[in-house]
């Protein structure tokens, strides 16, 4: 439908009124409309982060915190071998979870986007994947306990099948169970953006690749994969940042045996060592931002929006 400026107006006065208001309101309107979002994010995101940065330089003892400017919090944090070990451990979780969710996410999305032919089925199967996401994360974590525990389903199954004769101890409260829970919680964050990217791919391109003599693997590698990159990047950012900042999964699923940066911060908070927690938080934020910026350099995410 095309519209021209000559379209008859209902009345001259209404048009004049609109023109008068047209001078001020449209100019102010975007600011008014964006104000609630802006105020909320400033008040509950930007100001709190600036507070963390400020407090990270404060002094503290076992009783309270004192406004000051000291670097001891950072010095203590960065010179402690525990910090470095914890960072390495958290990175290990992030990399493992990322690699596994990427593999699962790409395969599931590829199946849904290119092998399921009717749109209805695509939507139904997609919904089937998203439904577990509606349950509380903590509930989803504890639901692994009867599964992986010493007397859990998996161990008793393996024993009765004669594969093992003693329960496998590494299944629960280990790095294995932590990564498993992460994959369980966050696989969807990979499936959704990759599926979204794949659905936008013009099917004619795949047609053309095949007509040009490309095998299925070549089409996958040279056509589908490059066009899916923005989705992969978005999913990766979600998974990596969620794992880097996590503390509940690590605490619950490792049974308190493993550490992560988030857990370290949560422990410092519970010991009321706020400046130490703040310094740790600033370093964590810096690390996460560096990782995100690195991922954004690989793809231009703005094209996705």
């Amino acid at each position, binding site marked *: 439908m095309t*519209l021209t400026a000559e*379209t008859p107006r*209902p009345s001259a006065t209404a048009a004049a009124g*609109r023109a008068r208001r047209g001078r001020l*309101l449209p100019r102010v*309107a*975007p600011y008014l409309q*964006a*104000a*609630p*979002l*802006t105020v*909320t*994010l400033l*008040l*509950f*995101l930007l100001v*709190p*982060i600036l*507070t963390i940065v400020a*407090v990270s330089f404060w002094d503290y003892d076992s009783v309270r915190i004192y406004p000051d400017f000291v670097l001891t919090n950072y010095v203590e944090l960065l010179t402690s071998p525990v910090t470095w070990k914890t960072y390495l451990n958290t990175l290990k979780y992030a990399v493992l979870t990322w690699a596994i969710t990427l593999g699962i996410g790409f*395969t*599931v999305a590829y*199946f849904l986007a*290119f*092998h399921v032919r009717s749109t209805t089925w695509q939507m139904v*199967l997609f919904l089937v*994947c998203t439904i*577990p996401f*509606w*349950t*509380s*994360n*903590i*509930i989803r974590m504890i*639901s*692994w306990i*009867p*599964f992986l*525990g010493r007397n859990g*389903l998996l161990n008793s199954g393996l024993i009765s099948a004669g594969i093992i004769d003693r329960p496998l101890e590494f299944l629960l409260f280990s790095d294995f169970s932590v990564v498993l829970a992460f994959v*369980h919680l966050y*696989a969807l964050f990979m499936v959704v953006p990759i599926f979204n990217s794949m659905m936008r791919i013009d*099917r004619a391109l795949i047609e053309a690749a095949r007509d040009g003599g490309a095998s*299925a693997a070549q089409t996958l590698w040279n056509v589908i994969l490059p066009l899916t990159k923005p989705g992969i990047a978005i999913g990766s950012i979600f998974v990596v*940042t969620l794992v880097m*900042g996590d*503390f*509940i999964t690590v605490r*619950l699923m490792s049974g308190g045996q493993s550490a992560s940066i988030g857990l370290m*911060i*949560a422990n410092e908070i519970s010991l009321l060592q*706020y400046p130490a*927690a*703040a310094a740790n*938080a600033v370093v*964590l*934020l810096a690390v*996460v931002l560096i990782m995100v910026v690195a991922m954004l350099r690989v793809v231009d995410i703005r094209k996705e*929006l």
Partner: protein
Amino acid sequence: MNTSRRGLSFHLLAGFFVLFVLFLYGPTATILVLSFQGPEGGLTFPMNGVSLHWFRNLFEQQAVGDFGGSFRRSIALGLMVMVLTVLFSVLAGFAFRRRFRGSGALFYLAVASLIVPSILVSLGIGLFFNILGLEPSWYGSALGAHLTWTLPFGLLIVFAIFNRFNPAYEEAARDLGASPWQTVRHVVLPILLPSLIGVGLFGFTLSYDEFARTLMTAGSFNTLPLEIYGMTTNVTTPVLYALGSLTTVFSFTVIGLFFLGLILLRRNRLRRNRFPVAGT
């Protein structure tokens, strides 16, 4: 891909998909079954009889915590987050349709809100309130903390909606003499409505589950995730599973009601046939 025969790769991928779905549902189904454990039963199989014992226990044993109160607070908080998320992100969506100073900065602030780890938001708001001498509360500081998580999602969904929105409807309304407000009220909002219900649903479920952002911001009264977390560290009976099953059923009921509303809305609209659904 568009070939009529389904080769080996289809079957392999379908098998993978089935395994994935089993992986997603299996554990949750396990605790659903185990919450009907008999009074003598423990946290794992075998089932020691079948009973509603642990569900009764959940409502009796108030020593464990304030389950009812935390449940009510979580719902109230979720509803507030839902309304504010829809309102704020739609308003901001309208703003972003035009150029305004600071729009780039605001967009990056919203994206940053998704990337900043939850525990940092919690810590920051907690410290901020602490320094100002304000008392954190679930309806104040926790509400703000939840909004930093739900608003960016809401905004991105609204962007996607407006991208698909055909401006010709608005132009048509304007040319028929509708004021800007009338255009929004009678044309834009009705077309957007189903998607807005989605934004609201998203906001509610994100808030209803949120743990890390509530940790330091909820004040003296717990929300449900905090309560459940407390239980995981000191409760070793299937009452934990009963609570898990109950909250899961509740989530599904809420989402079912939303979808029902959506279907009724669409049916109603088709019957009246006032607005073409194709525009949505």
